[in-house]
């Protein structure tokens, strides 16, 4: 495969043809924040945290879906990007009811980690305090919509890896919610195989194993990529 040479933050990088900026950056230890991205499932470019500046481009580009181009000059950590990322994280905290202190994912949460990474010591926007449901009708798992960031990782992993498509998104805009089957209680969603991949995929405490209490919801998200890799390399 042909190699591509380009620059990230003044560092010369070589990447394989067809690789995204995000892949190339991570291989070289350059971190770009992401939330909706999950190794093993398709990228949707929705969270906008991985936006980078590309010299000569008028607009910011999502690193997760932008392929590298020879001699491209990329900046991942400018003042402007830092400020925008912090605002995006603040918007998420203001949008639903994220209470780290009583969350099952406290200490193991990608949203919490991102807040630290972007330097969020408080949220400047007004909190919306929406009313959100908690569904614990499933015998093994639960979903708390207060903590959902609508990254759709559960939807994609269920569709693309488990192949069941129990999850989807209903409604739109701020009213959008992830749903199981006909928006019925998860426990009644007949298509669900209880495989638990959505639990692995969830970046926050929204989808959790029942019985987990504060801070207990640890998960090995790399498993998704392992499953996919194992399937592809099967002979």
């Amino acid at each position, binding site marked *: 495969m042909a190699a591509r040479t380009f620059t990230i933050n003044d560092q010369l990088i070589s990447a394989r043809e067809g690789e995204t900026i995000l892949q190339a950056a991570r291989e070289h230890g350059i971190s770009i924040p992401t939330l909706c991205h999950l190794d093993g499932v398709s990228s*949707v*470019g*929705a*969270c*906008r945290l991985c*936006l980078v500046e590309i010299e000569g481009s008028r*607009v*910011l580009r*999502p690193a997760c*879906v932008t392929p590298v181009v020879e001699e491209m000059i990329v900046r991942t950590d400018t003042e402007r990007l830092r*400020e*925008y990322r912090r*605002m*995006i994280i603040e*918007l*998420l905290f*203001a*949008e639903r009811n994220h209470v780290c202190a009583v969350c099952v994912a406290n200490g193991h949460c990608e949203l919490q980690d991102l807040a630290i990474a972007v330097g969020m010591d408080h949220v*400047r*926007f*007004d909190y*919306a305090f929406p009313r959100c449901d908690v569904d614990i009708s499933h015998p093994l798992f639960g979903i708390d919509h207060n903590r959902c*960031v*609508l990254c759709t990782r559960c939807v994609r992993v269920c569709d693309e890896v488990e192949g069941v498509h129990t999850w989807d*998104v209903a*409604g*739109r*805009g*701020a*009213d*959008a919610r992830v749903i199981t089957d006909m928006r019925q209680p998860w426990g009644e969603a007949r298509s669900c195989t209880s495989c638990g991949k959505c639990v692995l995929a969830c970046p926050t405490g929204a989808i959790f194993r029942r019985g987990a209490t504060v801070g207990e919801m640890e998960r090995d998200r790399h498993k998704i990529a392992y499953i996919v890799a194992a399937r592809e390399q099967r002979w």
Partner: protein
Amino acid sequence: MDISELLAIAEHENALRRPIGIRCCTALGCQSAGALSLKQRLEEAVAEVDRTDIEVIGVGCMGLCGHGPLVQVDPHGVLYEHVRAADAPSIVAALDGGEATAPQGDPQHPFFTLQKRIVLENSGMIDPERIESYIAAGGYQALYHVLHDMTPAEVIDVVTRSGLRGRGGAGYPTGLKWATVAKSHGDRKYVVCNADEGDPGAFMDRSIIESDPHKVLEGMAIAAYAVGADQGYVYVRAEYPLAIQRLQRAIAQARRLGLLGAQIFDAGFTFRVDIRVGAGAFVCGEETALMASIEGRRGQPRPRPPYPAESGLWGRPTLINNVETFANIPPIIRNGAEWFAAIGAETSKGTKVFALTGKIRHTGLIEVPMGVTLRQIVEDMGGGVPEGRVKAVQTGGPSGGCIPAALLDTPVDYESLQRVGSIMGSGGMVVMDDATNMVDVAHFYMEFCKDESCGKCIPCRAGTAQMLHMLDLIRSGQATAADLAQLEQLCLMVKETSLCGLGQSAPNPVLSTMKYFREEYEALVRGERSEVRGQR
């Protein structure tokens, strides 16, 4: 079907014409005001006087929708406004020197005389429900010419040299888009007509389809030939039942005559067109969302590249143009690239159709050469506001901005409108008078964008909700100067980070009103308006 048959249809149709034609508008605006019963009454009145030299024709939009129902009598061009069914006999009697009871309009008013009709050349002239009427006006000859005398590359060359740019809003060069699709490889290609006219305050595309549906179909067929597509879709809003009905009829008629379908004009060219009816989602005007919707999915945009020209419907190369863009094609083929390029402004060739509405005397649909000033449109053609003064002109709908009265001399072209903080948009032009509070206007658009945000990307989903909340605080006098600064910051972020055009342009109405009418925001911050009026 060959050219002689086509010409024979035209000839036959023209032979049927009577010396005196009473044209009655049957587009949506006039229909709502009673045009259908009026037309029937006119037909009866003609039958009553037993005149075979008079015919009554139902036609598409005549433009001056605010004064409907409209009736115009050929060959003298006498125009009647606000016509009631009861006026019908007197209109027929007036042909013999009687006095018509309906008020007469002035066909020499600048509203009409300053127009340059290319897209609307047949609007209000032909019967949109009969393909023969379109053929008699020269219809489908451009398609014949293209199929028999030109290579696809030559067609693209003509469109490129004409300087035509996309009329959907962004103004991307049409020829370039066609060339990209033509060059892209795929086992199949598609042509899509974007008739998901979602901007509130805009009805150009609805009117074009209701008044002259075949022109759009002919434009699509020419495009399909040029890029190598064999299947077309018209994606039209469910809110436009009359347009859908006329389009369905037009497609069936064209198919029957062999002008759509297999082996068009025996030239080895096949092109089928299907209608896809939208279901109430503004975001589906965005091309990747539109394609998702045609594929039966949630109308959510995806990042570009890949562009639809390379990977569109079902992953195949897809050409997406707006209704007005396609409607420009047959005249360009007929009259040549140079003819078109000679009309309009330096970087914006041809004409633009605008829906002129709001606080203005003459509301309706106009087509003007690019480069005319907003002042000519608003003051000369539109007759200014009924009471008070013009305060601002809003172009581009929720994606556009408010241009203050002081900048009315701005010429209408893509670049000039962008320079003053708005956009050309699809053609909505809403005039506001000094009774309009601009913070309310910004709030109105933001509420729209928040409701229409698909929810996929965070800046648009959460950002529009937050911007709306901040505008609420400002309107209710609870905001501080710091909040204004924060709102501005948020606007810039949403503009630069959102995934699609909806989010990227959602802050525009706020930014432009903050730029030109900042004192209105500041007055509210100082608590100078106790009562909030306007939208809920």
